[in-house]
C-alpha cells in the first residue's frame, strides 16, 4: 500500500514534504514582531528585538525537531509527555520562580520556562491519543465524557491555582475544541453554553463590590494597579487614533509616551495598530487567518484520527490565542494575560507555539502513517 512507503520516508524526503508556505507565513509574522519590538523599545535593537530573534531561532530548531520525529514515537509517548507536563505544573509551587505574585516559571537549563504554555499542547496530544484509542469501543458517558473530562480538568485547575486564569481558560477552550472535533453532540455544547451564560450574571449578583474587584484582580493579578478600565481605555485610544493609515512606524504617540502598558508583550497589537492603522491591523489579521486556514487544510489531509485531532487542536489553540489577545486589546474581552503569537515578547509562548506547529507539521508529514490503538504500528 502507498502508506507502507511513506512510513519509510527518510529525513530528506521529510524535509521536502514540510509545507514551506506555512513556515514562510510564520517567518513573516516573526519579522513583523522584530519590527514591532524595535519600535516598542524606541529603536534599541539590542534589548527586546535581539532576544526575540534568539528565541525564534531556538523555536525554529524545536519546530524542525518535533516535525521530523516519527509520529509513532510521538503517539507512543503522548501520555508520558502529558504526564511530564502535568508533573512540571505540580512541582512549580516547590521549585518555581515567583514573579508578580504568581508562580508560573521553572528554570530548566538556564531557561525560564512557563510549563502552562506547553500544557495547552500536551493536553491536546493526550486527548487526541485517547479519542483515537477508544474509537471502536462502546460509547459510554464514562469513556467519552467523564475520563477525558477528568484528564482535561486537572491541568486547568493546576494552572488556575497559580493563579493564571487566562491560560487556564485557553487550556479549557483547547480541550473543549477537541471534544467538538471528535464529535460530541451539539446538545452538550448548547446546554453547557446556556448554563454558563445564565449562571454567570446570577453568580455575579451575589458578589460584593470588593469581591468583584478581587475577581478582576484574580483575572489579572500583575497588571492594572491604578484603575480597572485604564489599560483598555488607553489601548482603544491608541488604536482609534491610529485611524485608517496609522501614525507611521515608530510614531505612535500613545505607545511611545508610555500611556500604553505592557506595550512589548500583551499590548503589542495596540502599538502595531496605532502605528499602521486599520489597514495594517487588517493585514496582520489576514496573515493570522491564512495561517489558520492553511493549517486546517493541512490537518484534514491526515489519515489517522490521532493526527487529525492533534492538528486541528493545534489550529484551534492558535486561534484562541489570537482572538483572545486582539479581543482583549480592542476591548471586546476582559483583560487576561495572553500574548500575541510570534509578535509579543516572551520566550515560553514562542517555544510553545512552535512546539504546537511542529506537532501539526509532524502530522502533515506523516499523513499516511497508520497508527494502531495502543500506539503499536
Amino acid at each position, binding site marked *: 500500500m502507498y502508506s507502507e512507503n511513506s512510513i519509510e520516508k527518510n529525513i530528506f524526503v521529510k524535509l521536502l514534504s514540510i509545507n514551506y508556505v506555512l513556515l514562510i507565513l510564520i517567518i513573516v509574522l516573526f519579522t513583523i514582531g522584530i519590527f514591532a519590538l524595535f519600535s516598542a523599545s524606541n529603536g534599541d535593537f539590542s534589548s527586546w528585538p535581539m532576544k526575540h530573534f534568539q528565541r525564534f531561532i531556538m523555536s525554529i530548531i524545536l519546530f524542525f525537531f518535533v516535525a521530523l520525529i516519527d509520529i509513532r514515537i510521538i503517539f507512543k509517548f503522548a501520555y508520558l509527555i502529558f504526564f511530564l507536563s502535568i508533573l512540571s505544573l505540580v512541582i512549580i509551587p516547590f521549585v518555581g520562580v515567583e514573579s508578580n505574585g504568581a508562580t508560573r516559571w521553572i528554570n530548566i537549563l538556564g531557561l525560564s520556562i512557563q510549563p502552562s504554555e506547553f500544557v495547552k499542547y500536551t493536553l491536546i496530544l493526550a486527548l487526541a491519543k485517547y479519542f483515537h484509542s477508544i474509537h471502536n469501543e462502546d460509547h459510554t458517558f464514562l469513556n467519552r465524557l467523564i475520563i477525558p473530562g477528568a484528564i482535561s480538568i486537572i491541568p486547568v485547575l493546576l494552572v488556575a491555582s497559580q493563579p493564571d486564569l487566562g491560560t487556564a481558560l485557553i487550556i479549557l477552550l483547547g480541550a473543549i475544541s477537541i471534544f467538538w472535533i471528535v464529535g460530541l453532540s451539539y446538545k452538550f455544547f448548547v446546554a453547557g453554553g446556556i448554563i454558563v451564560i445564565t449562571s454567570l450574571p446570577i453568580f455575579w449578583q451575589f458578589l460584593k463590590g470588593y469581591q468583584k474587584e478581587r475577581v478582576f484582580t484574580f483575572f489579572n493579578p500583575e497588571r492594572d494597579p491604578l484603575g480597572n478600565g485604564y489599560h483598555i481605555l488607553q489601548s482603544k485610544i491608541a488604536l482609534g*487614533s491610529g485611524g485608517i493609515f496609522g501614525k507611521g512606524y515608530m510614531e505612535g504617540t500613545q505607545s511611545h509616551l508610555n500611556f500604553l502598558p505592557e506595550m512589548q508583550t500583551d499590548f503589542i497589537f495596540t502599538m502595531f495598530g496605532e502605528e499602521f492603522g486599520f489597514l495594517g491591523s487588517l493585514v496582520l489579521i489576514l496573515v493570522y487567518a491564512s495561517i489558520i486556514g492553511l493549517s486546517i487544510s493541512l490537518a484534514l489531509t491526515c489519515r489517522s484520527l490521532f493526527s487529525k485531532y492533534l492538528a486541528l487542536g493545534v489550529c484551534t489553540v492558535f486561534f484562541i490565542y489570537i482572538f483572545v489577545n486582539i479581543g482583549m486589546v480592542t476591548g471586546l474581552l476582559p483583560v487576561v494575560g495572553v500574548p500575541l503569537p510570534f509578535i509579543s515578547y516572551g520566550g515560553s509562548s514562542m517555544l510553545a507555539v512552535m512546539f504546537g506547529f511542529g506537532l501539526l507539521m509532524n502530522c502533515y508529514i506523516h499523513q499516511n502513517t497508520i497508527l494502531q490503538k495502543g500506539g503499536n504500528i
Partner: protein
Amino acid sequence: MKKSDNFIFENYETDNLINRRAAIITIAQGGLFSLLAGRLAYLQIANRDNYKILSDKNRITHRLLEPKRGIIYDAQGKPLAINMERYEAVIIKEETKDVFKSLSAFQKILPESNIDYDQIIDEINNRKKFVPVKIIDDLSWQEFSKINANIHKIDGIFPQIGFKRYYTGGPSHAHIVGYVTNLDKDEKYLSPLSDLNNAKSGKLGIEKAKDVSLRGHIGNKNIEVNASGREIRELDRIDSLPGENIQLTIDKEIQEYCYERLNGLSGCIAVTNVNSGEFNALVSSPAYDPNLFGKSISQSTWNSLLTNKYKPLINKAISNHYPPGSTIKPFVALAALEYGIDPNQEVFCDGKHLIEDSSVESGYKTFHCWKKGGHGLVNLTDAIKVSCDVYFYQISRRIGINKIAEVCRRFGLGKNTFECLKEETNGLVPDKSWKLSNLGSPWMVGETLSAGIGQGYFLATSAQLSLALAQLTNGGKKLSPSIFYKNLSQKNEHLDSKIADPKYLKIIKRGLDEATNDPGGTSYYSRIRGKHEFGGKTGTSQVRVISSEEREEGLIKNEDLPWEKRDHGLFIGYGPISKPQYTVSVIVEHGGSGSGTAAPIASDVFKFLFDNKLDLKRKNIFDV
C-alpha cells in the same frame, strides 16, 4: 449502534463528521476574525476622530514650579531683595515638531528681538523634553501681550511669568546683599534647581552665603495638555516651597548714607553696634547696580566692571585687607598696659628711633616718626592722641611682637569676622612663628617696630577694625559679630565674658577721646563741635617703601604721586563717648591721610547715627 451513541456522539461516518466539525470551526473562526476586523473598523475608521481628540487630549506632561526666592530684609524690616514678575517666552521641545520653525515663527512676532538660535537649540538638547527653555527674557508688558495675542499660531512656544530679583538698595547694598545670576556650568549638575529654565544662584554677599536657604524647594505638577500643548487641566501638584526670608542687621538708611557719603571714593565703611556685635553697615565703594544682573548683563558692562581700577566688584569692607597703620595703636597700647608698662611713663620723641643693624654701613637703622621734628615728651594717652610713632616703637620693642599679636587676635584681627561670607579675607596678624613657617626666616626687631605702628606684615579689614574697637570701647565685652538679625531669645550675649581689663581700656579710651576732641589730636578737625560725641584713631598706611634718599630730599606729597601709590587713609571711632553705642571704621583707598580723608567721613557718619536714633526703628520681621 446503541442509543447512547446517538446521545453522546453524532451518528456520522467518522471522516465526514470530522470534516463537518472542522468546517464549522473554520466558519466560526472566520466569523470571529470578522468580528475582530469589524471591531477594528469601528475603532479605527468610524471613531477615529473621537479617539484622535482623546489621544491628543490625553497627553499628560510634567511642569516644574519655580520656588520664590527668600526675601532679604534690613534691620528695620525694609526689603532689600525682593522678587518681581518677569515676562518671558519659553519653548518646550515635546510640544513642537520643528523647533527651528517655531522659533522663526516667533521671530516674526517680535522682529526686533535678538534670538540666539544656536544657544537655544543647544539648551533644548541638553535638557529633558518637558523642560521649558527660555527664548527671550525680561520682556516689556507690551511685548508680552503681543506674544500672548499671537502665540496660538506657534507650536511649542509659551508666554510665561516668572520671577526676577530686584534689589531695592541698588548700588549701596550691592556687595553685602550680593546678586544672583544664571547657574554656572559646573553648578548645573549640583543644584536641584538646575532643571528650571530660570535657575539662578547667589554669586556674592548674602545671596551667596545663604543661597541654599534662600532658594527654596522646587515644585512640580502633572498636567493634561491638548494637541498644541496648552494646559487643559491640572492633575496633581506639589507646590514649590518659597525660600527662607532673611533679616539682616544692616540698616538700609545707614548703609545708604555711608554709600552716599563716600561719594564714589574708593573705600569702605563698617558700622558696628558695640553692645550686640551687630553690623549696621558694610559699605564698599564704588559699586555697581546689582539689578543689572537680573537680565543677562552685557559683555561690555561686565568687562568694564572687571577692569575698573577701583575694583567695584569687590566688597572692600571684608574682602580687601589693608595695613591698619596707626589704627592699631590702641591695641598695641593695651598690650603694653597688660605687659605692665606704666601709662604715665614718658618717652622722648625726637622724630626718630634707631636700632642696631649690622647689615647697613652705618650700623644702625632709623625708624622715623610721622612728625619730622618729633613730639617731645609723651605718655601713653598723649601718644594715642598725637599718634606718636616713636612712643610705639619703644614700647613695641619692649613687649615684643608675640604680645602685640596675642592682643590683636583676641580682639578679632587676623581671622574672618563673619563665618558665612565666602568672599571674606582674614587679614594677617604677624608673629614670630608665623614668619618662620610662612617666610622661613626668623623675626627681626625692626619688624616689631613696623608692626607696632600697623605697618609691615600687618593686614586688617575694615570690618575687623570696627569689631575690634567695639570690643575695646564696650568695656571689654566679647562680641559675636553678626549680620543676621536675631530674636531677643536668640541673642546670646557674653555678658560676663571680658576679654580685657576695663581699667586699661579706660586709659586707652581717654587717648581716643583726646585724639578727636582735644586740640592737637589727630582728628581734632573732624570733631563734632561743642560736644564730646565721638572719639577715634586715625591711620595712614603706606603702600610703598620710602627710601632714605627720598627722606633726605623731602617726602613726595601724596597729591604728586600716582593714585595707586598714595597712602591709605583710615579712621576708627566710637561714640557717644559717655555711653558708647557704635563704632565706625572708614578706609579710603589711597586717600592720602587718615585725618584728612577718613576722619571727616566718620564724623559725618556719627552725626547721622546720633541725629536719627535708628536703633529705635528696629523691627523684627519674624515677631508678628
